[in-house]
């Protein structure tokens, strides 16, 4: 997943679970059936899992632009300088 996809996945998960919780509680209360509330919510959790956990293509619509390999060779990585290996001597009291 790319960054936008991750954000979408998180938002989708939160909104879906919240909506199913509200719908489940309202239905259970109106129908006076605790079991109905649990069943609707369980179905909602399964649907949310199927939609947000796997790496679906629509989560990858803004792919990261990695640098082209030929471009990388033109700009070599900077080497560490020789001064860094010198150590400061500790001051003794």
């Amino acid at each position: 997943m790319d960054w936008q996809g991750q954000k979408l996945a998180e938002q989708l998960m939160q909104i879906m679970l919240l909506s199913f919780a509200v719908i489940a509680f309202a239905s259970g209360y109106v129908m006076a059936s605790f079991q109905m509330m649990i069943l609707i919510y369980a179905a909602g959790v399964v649907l949310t899992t199927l939609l947000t956990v796997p790496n679906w293509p629509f989560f990858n619509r803004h792919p990261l632009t990695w640098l082209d390999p030929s471009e990388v060779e033109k700009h070599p990585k900077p080497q560490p300088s020789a001064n860094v290996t010198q150590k400061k001597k500790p001051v003794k009291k």
Partner: protein
Amino acid sequence: MHSYGYRANAVLTFSLTLLAVMCAMASLSDNRNSPSPSAHVQLRSLILNVTSFHRLSLYVVSMAMNISADLQSLFTWNTKQVFVFLAAEYRTPKHSLNQISLWDGIIPSKEHAKFWIHTSNKYRFIDQGSNLRGKEFNLTMHWHVMPKTGKMFADKIVMPGYRLPEEYR
């Protein structure tokens, strides 16, 4: 949100948190219920006997009674069952309140909550010494409304005016 495990964990924890919130709301909705239960006990026979146990004299009461009650208004959508029991309460010189359970039952659903039964006492009505001779007592019906989730409510109805016989058989 960068891996399967991360997203699966997020779904699991958030869904369980919301489930806890829903259950709390379901329990709070029980407070909106204002029940109006009724109960009546008719004593068919009341017999006082004496036994002894290790040189202690014990008075035992055997009773047959009709118990009728309408506890349907106690049930809500969040009720698993109602536990109901009938207790005899009386006063003695030594203790101001003595309670003894005579009968209990479990009501699994609203349909069973309106009942009329003829029964003898399920548990022994027994006391030491001569406390029970001619004793006036109350019959109190207690109930515990057990929820599917959340707070349990308990209450009672006091039915006064019963009296044990003076003489034993």
